[in-house]
């Protein structure tokens, strides 16, 4: 069967089971948009290519399937660089297709030419510049294989216009061998010796902690984790990238560690004698000052990516494996710590002394952002997916929402990309239409990508957006208040400009506003009643609220600052 390269590209995506592409056409990718009309694949026309990338990420994080975005060359391609970088930091499986100028024009500064494979070399797992139509199926199959196996990540396919316009004989690779990836070995056999040494370390441990990272979600290991944790009775912490990997309602769960982590989670790591890292990477937002991080602990490091071993922290035993296999092997080896009653007693005392707290809400407002999140959560249907922007609101969402299952928390961790929340929510809702999707956003973040609500309305994607409008780039304001003598430099945004309600309405959404407790409860009720169009709520929150606990950047986790309400109490 003879096809054009463009037809072959769409057919290849169909072969990979793609049901949705997020994108926006332009000159170089035009040939591919023609056969798209005849395809069963749904295309979501975004208003900015950054939106396409974050939607694909939201789709991937909520469904566990790779997200797909397609854009044109030049500015279309550069506009999607931020999401690619974001997905790279968070190991999110993406396949991004960019149009490119014709092969004969490459290198001539042709109209809308840009070296996107060069630009994204350091922020993709791999990228391809496809040289002939005949190679398209192989590139697509290899891209999906690379994006989803081993440590997942974004893969970019750059397709010159003459390649999509020329003819090819249809074929599709049937086996991994045909992908032509001789250097790619995503899985290695489990090192039984390492498993035995890890089991021995666990056997000697009196104060272990399971340090659960995003790799646990990426390897779909939540049920293995639950079984292992319950059998061994070990305390569990889940990083920002792993929220939902272990139920927040579980009494062995201490919550999130790190800069804005729970006191008990941070301190349990500091005092543990064995830290078992499961798909985590010792990010500086978790470790604080590295030499002071869990200084007395032995470390077992489980990761699919061997380059993570000893990168930041020397491991006593490293196990190169996906988390699910490693946990099954540790179970089979009978890894069991000593009696943990004493350890739990200590941990329970930390939990009792330093729970998450915030100042009493005032009836007339401004609202407490933490209270808003709890109020939304209280009325949200089970299994609601939450996305966030980046800033204080993100930390509060992670702290105050209770996540019970994988795929319900979608956020930008490693890159911290403002503007992630709204498009990610759209992508999540497309992937899981049966779920309610709330975006907890900041006023600053909302202004970066809000135009995608036009996309949401046009495509019938009814997400709910809660703007915690504190009139500031709040997280930066918090640092200026605490570490720069309250000298506020370029962080004020103005709660009334823009008018978020009118803006929402102009984008075809329902716009609501809440300034006091009564309105807060009313608008949440109203938002929950609306299921056909997107809803945006402007919650007027207290500008002076800060996120606690907090470990200052570069400080030791021992010097964690608790909420002012808890200070003075002895540690």
């Amino acid at each position, binding site marked *: 069967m003879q096809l054009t390269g463009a037809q072959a590209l769409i057919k290849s995506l169909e072969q990979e089971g793609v049901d949705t592409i997020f994108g926006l056409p332009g000159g170089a990718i035009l040939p591919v948009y023609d056969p798209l009309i005849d395809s069963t694949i749904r295309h979501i026309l975004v208003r900015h290519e950054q939106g396409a990338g974050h939607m694909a990420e939201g789709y991937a994080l909520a469904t566990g399937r790779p997200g797909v975005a397609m854009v044109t060359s030049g500015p279309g391609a550069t506009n999607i660089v931020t999401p690619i970088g974001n997905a790279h930091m968070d190991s999110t499986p993406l396949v991004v297709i960019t149009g490119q100028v014709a092969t004969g024009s490459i290198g001539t500064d042709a109209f809308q030419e840009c070296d996107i*494979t*060069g630009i994204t*070399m*350091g922020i993709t*797992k*791999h990228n391809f*510049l496809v040289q002939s139509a005949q190679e398209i199926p192989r590139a697509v199959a290899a891209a999906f294989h*690379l994006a989803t196996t081993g440590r997942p990540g974004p893969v970019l396919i750059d397709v010159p216009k003459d390649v999509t316009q020329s003819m090819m004989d249809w074929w599709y690779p049937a086996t991994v061998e045909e992908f032509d*990836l*001789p*250097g*790619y070995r995503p899985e290695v056999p489990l090192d039984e010796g390492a498993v035995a040494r890890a089991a021995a370390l666990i056997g000697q441990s009196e104060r272990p902690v399971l340090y659960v990272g995003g790799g646990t979600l990426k390897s779909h290991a939540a049920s293995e984790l639950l079984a292992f944790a319950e059998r061994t009775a070990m305390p569990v912490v889940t990083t920002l990238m792993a929220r939902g990997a272990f139920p927040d309602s579980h009494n062995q769960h201490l919550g999130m560690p790190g800069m804005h982590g729970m006191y008990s989670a941070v301190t349990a790591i500091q005092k543990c004698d064995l830290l078992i890292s499961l798909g985590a990477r010792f990010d*500086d937002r978790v470790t604080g000052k*590295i*030499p002071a*991080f869990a200084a007395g602990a032995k470390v077992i490091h489980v990761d699919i*990516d*061997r*380059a*993570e*071993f*000893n*990168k*930041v*922290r*020397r491991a006593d035993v490293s196990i190169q494996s996906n988390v699910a296999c490693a946990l099954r092997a540790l179970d089979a080896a009978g890894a069991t710590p000593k009696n943990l009653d004493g350890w739990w007693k200590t941990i329970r005392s930390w939990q009792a002394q330093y729970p998450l707290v915030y100042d009493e809400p005032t009836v007339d407002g401004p609202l407490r952002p933490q209270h808003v999140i709890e109020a939304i959560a209280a009325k949200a249907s089970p299994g609601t997916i939450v996305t966030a922007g980046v800033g204080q609101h993100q930390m509060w969402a992670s702290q105050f929402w209770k996540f019970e299952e994988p795929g319900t928390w979608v956020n930008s961790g490693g890159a911290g990309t403002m503007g992630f929340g709204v498009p990610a929510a759209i992508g999540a809702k497309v992937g899981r239409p049966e779920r309610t999707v709330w975006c907890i956003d900041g006023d600053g973040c909302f202004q970066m990508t809000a135009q995608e609500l036009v996309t949401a309305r046009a495509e019938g994607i009814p997400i709910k957006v809660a703007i915690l409008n504190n009139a500031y780039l709040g997280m930066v304001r918090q640092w200026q208040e605490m570490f720069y003598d309250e000298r506020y430099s370029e962080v004020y945004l103005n709660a009334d400009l823009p008018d978020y309600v009118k803006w929402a309405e102009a984008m075809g959404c329902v716009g609501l506003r809440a300034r006091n407790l009564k309105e807060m409860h009313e608008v949440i009720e109203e938002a929950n009643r609306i299921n056909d169009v997107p809803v945006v709520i402007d919650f007027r929150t207290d500008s002076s609220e800060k996120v606690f606990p907090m470990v200052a950047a570069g400080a030791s986790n021992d010097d964690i600052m608790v909420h002012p309400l808890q200070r003075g109490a002895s540690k």
Partner: protein
Amino acid sequence: MSPEPYLGDVAHTPVRHHILSVLVENKAGVLARIAGLFARRGFNIYSLAVAPAEGHARFSRVTIVVDAESAPLEQIMGQLDKLVNVVAITDLAPSDAVERELLLATIKTNVANRTPLLDTLGDAGAAIIDVDPGAVTVMLAGTPGACDALEKALEGFAEVELHRTGRVALPRLGRAAKA
């Protein structure tokens, strides 16, 4: 990320450089991928040499001499291995390898420096490969140490243009017998 990874209390063996013999797919951009990786991760390269791999049109062999103090070797190899076009990596400690590099130099000649120059070249084992009335071009294929020595010796001469290829290396034969 902290500039200095905390590595606990393990002793470091102070080996200055290591030689990585890297088999790569012969694809466009593969050198840029390697160079880019080293640049963005702050790994230092002393030299890098590329040649078609023995008997394969599909593969090339890249010999990279890395500064094993700029980053732990394990990190360098782990990150390199993640490049999809990298097929295999062999790590050679200097003591386990035979290393050679090529030095080319053009030296302006005159009546006064001719004899000392010929002596220097003779001592180094360098060969003259091009001559004109006012200059000679010489070459030395030797150990990096021999090339260092010749480079130093040539400092005594005026107007020298000198190029070195960087080393290539292969495992030393009979290493098992040595132990």
